[in-house]
C-alpha cells in the first residue's frame, strides 16, 4: 500500500471513528462507512490539510470512496 493510501485510511478511521478493517479501498464514505454530508466535507478538509493540497468543490463532490480520495491526492501531488 502506498504512503498516501495509508495516510488516507488513517484519516478516515480517525474522522469517522470506524474500524480500520472496514476502511477498504473500495469503501464508500456514505454507504459503507456511515458518513453524513457534513462528515464528507470534514474529510475533504482533513485531506487538504494533511496533504497540503487544495481540493476544489467540483472535485470534492466526486470523492465518494477511499479510492477516489487516494487517486485525487496522488494526482494532485504528482
Amino acid at each position: 500500500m502506498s504512503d498516501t493510501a495509508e495516510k488516507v485510511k488513517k484519516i478516515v478511521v480517525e474522522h469517522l471513528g470506524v474500524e480500520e478493517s472496514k476502511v477498504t479501498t473500495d469503501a464508500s464514505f456514505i454507504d459503507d462507512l456511515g458518513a453524513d454530508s457534513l462528515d464528507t466535507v470534514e474529510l475533504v478538509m482533513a485531506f487538504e490539510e494533511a496533504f497540503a493540497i487544495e481540493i476544489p468543490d467540483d472535485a470534492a463532490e466526486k470523492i465518494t470512496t477511499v479510492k477516489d480520495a487516494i487517486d485525487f491526492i496522488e494526482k494532485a501531488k504528482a
Partner: protein
Amino acid sequence: MTALFRLDGKAALVTGATGGIGAAIARALHAQGARVALTGRRESELAALAAELGEGAFVLPADLTDPEAPAALIERMEAELGACDILVNNAGMTRDGLALRMGDKDWADVLEVDLTAPFRLARASLRGMMKRRSGRIISIASIVGVTGNAGQANYAAAKAGLIGMSKALAQEVAPRGVTVNVVAPGFVATAMTDVLNDTQKAGLMGRIPLGRMGQPEDIAAAVVYLASPQAGWVTGATIHVNGGMAMI
C-alpha cells in the same frame, strides 16, 4: 455551584466593536473572562477600548467590505490570540430611504456589510469550531428584520437574512456542538439611533411598553448568555431584546 455565564479561557471576535452595542458586547464578554478581538474600521477607537479593557483585549482592524477580509481576520485572530470560540457578528450599517428612491448601491452596500460579511465570517470560523466540536456564532440582527420598517427595505432584508442564515447554519453544524443564534435588538440609544429627531423618539417611546430606549448593555447581556456554556441547548434561536415593542 459554578458561576453562571463565565467565559474563562474562551476567545471571542466582536465585529463593529467601535459602535455603541459592539463596545458593550466586548466589555461584557471580557468581564466574563473571555479574551476579545476587537474589529472595526476606526483603529484609534479600537485601541482606546483595548486600553480600557487591559489584558486580554486585542485590536484587529479590518474593512469587512473587502471580500477577502473575513477569512484573513479569522486567520489573524487564531495567530494572535488563539482559536475563535465565539464569533459575534455585530457590525452593521444603515442607508435609509424609501424603496422608490433607493439606489442599487444603497441596497447592495447594506446587504454586503450586514449580511454577506457575517456569512463569510461564519464560514471562516466554522472550520475550526467544527474540528474542536464547540463554538458559538451570535449575530446581531434587529427588530426591523422581523417587523419591517418604512425606509429600511435594505436593512430589514439584511437583518431578516441574518435570522434565516443562522437557522440554516444552526442545523448544519449542530451535530458538531456549534450553536448559531441571533439577538434582535429594538431601539437602542446609540449613534445609529441618535439621528432620529425628538418627535420620532417620543413616538417610539409610546410604542415601548417598558418605557425607555434600550441601553447597549441590555443587548450585551443576551450575547453573554448565548456565548456561555449554559446556553448549550439553545440553537437557531432569536432572542428579542426590545422593551416589549414587538412581542414575537
